């Protein structure tokens, strides 16, 4: 079985964000990038599936990023993925969510898959739109927000997170699954894994190679445009009160909530 895990590099959340006032894009070069924490669960789940299923199961990492994205790919390979494919082109810059889904779907079609795994969201955009949009483009089941995953032969079963619990959902491969945090405990790359990752193949994909239409990507293809942005000021520090006993502390909060009319 061919498993492809789609991953993304994201700016480290504890880093200071700066923006290019001309392009209205994040200055990604000034910030340390990390593997999107949500993607680690997808990689781990893929590796566990490979261990369970054995045979000729392979795990391929797919990413769309500037050249610097190779670092997160190496990390994923260090965790144990077999190989990787990377789509990197300056023309991709400025692509919006839907263009991203378009390019990922084309890349997936190009490299081939039985199962696509991804995180539910990225920590920089928190859109959670891309997984479902990619599945829709590929016309395969969109098994999103899975907190448990089981594959048996050609059949796949997930527990899909709902507001009050979960749905047990069954479908046939090929399919796309986005996994929630908590589905597993991602492993750390071992030293041996990191050394081995250097020898693993990273196939470079091109826009022409995957058959992408230039009019549908980058700034030209974007259906949304950031008009303006402003840095949100820090929340003002409010009153900090030291309670001498529990009742006094509770009373203080209660009076505050009443004054603010939230109760």
């Amino acid at each position, binding site marked *: 079985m061919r498993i492809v895990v789609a991953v993304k590099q994201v700016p480290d959340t504890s880093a200071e964000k700066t923006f290019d006032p001309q392009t209205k894009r994040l200055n990604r070069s000034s910030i340390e990038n990390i593997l999107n924490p949500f993607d680690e669960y997808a990689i781990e789940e893929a590796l566990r599936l490979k261990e369970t299923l054995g045979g000729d199961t392979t795990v391929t990492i797919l990413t769309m990023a500037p050249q610097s994205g190779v670092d997160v790919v190496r990390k994923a390979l260090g965790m144990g993925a077999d190989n990787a494919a990377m789509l990197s082109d300056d023309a991709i810059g400025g692509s919006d969510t839907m263009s991203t889904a378009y390019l990922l779907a084309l890349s997936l079609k190009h490299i081939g898959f039985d199962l696509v795994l991804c995180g539910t969201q990225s920590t920089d955009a928190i859109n959670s739109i891309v997984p479902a949009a990619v599945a829709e483009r590929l016309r395969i089941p969109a098994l999103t927000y899975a907190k448990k995953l089981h594959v048996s032969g050609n059949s796949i079963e997930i527990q899909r997170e709902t507001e009050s619990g979960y749905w047990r959902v069954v*479908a046939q491969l090929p399919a796309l699954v986005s996994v929630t945090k908590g589905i597993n405990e991602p492993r750390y790359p071992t030293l041996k894994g990191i050394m081995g990752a250097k020898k693993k193949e990273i196939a470079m994909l091109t826009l022409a190679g995957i058959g992408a239409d230039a009019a549908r990507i980058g700034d030209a293809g974007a259906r949304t445009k950031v008009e303006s942005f402003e840095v949100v000021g820090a929340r003002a520090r409010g*009153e900090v009160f030291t309670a001498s006993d529990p009742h006094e502390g509770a009373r203080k909060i209660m009076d505050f909530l009443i004054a603010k009319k939230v109760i």
Partner: protein
Amino acid sequence: MKAVVALIEHEAGVVRRSGLELASKAADLAKELGAASAAIVLGPGANDAAQALKSTPIDTIYAGPDVPAERFLGDPVVDALDALLKRIGPCALLVPASNAGKDAGARVAVRLGAGVITEASDISVKDGALVVRSPKFGGSVMSSIVFVGCDYQVVVCRANSFTARDQAGKGEIVALAPPPERQYPARVEESVVQEAGKVPVEEASIIVSGGRGLGGPEHFDIIEALADALGGAVGASRAAVDAGWIPHAHQVGQTGKTVTPQLYIACGISGAIQHKVGMRSAGIIVAINKDGNAPIFEFCDLGVVGDLFGIVPELTKLVKERKGAA
């Protein structure tokens, strides 16, 4: 643009609060654009939900009770939305930022060639077009985003961003014809309810959260009691989730949910940046922590330095007394 359409979620016919918020916002935007306002409600119970929507300012309510939304994952809803929006013509679709709402918005956008804007905290009209305000990068930046050259526009709306108004519009209910009986590839074999009657953290207008300071899973009882008394949801920090004290669905923060309640009460949470990015957009933040130097005291509206095991139950008692007296 011909219409602004709100996708309404409901629980067995009871409209979720997001539905009331979206219906009010759709009606306001439609009025400003000189377009029609509509709501679409699908699945068993849709007729009851449609009746309830008559008290919102929406003009047309499309009800599809026969759409098998509970038997297959996503597909029937996407098909129904796709068909209806094509019938209506160029329009904006507002969907709630729930798991199902985001999926439906993303997938129907692919089918219609729509643009999608997510995490909307406000939507306004400028020069006859929608302008969406959306916080980015953990709420450190507020962006204003517009659609470019697309007939269909999908906006994913954060909970608690719009005010639900009780003001009846035309409220004309239009029944959607039952879809042809068919099988879809992703079948729902079982629906398991684990937390009946609880408000999910991403939708709640009040959240009481517990962190490392609780010391163990058994102490989430006092958090839950306060949340219940306030009619809110239980949240948690990453430390509490990673320790296995509470399921991940409750986690607020960078690797959990981003929430925007009116009131957020953080109990025994230090307030690291990874937690802050998930809750900094809350209306009011109250923190209880025994460590007076905890970072959370730098960005809360009221901080109380003290013993949460004493303060939280006492506060629950005061809330109950007040609600009982009201």
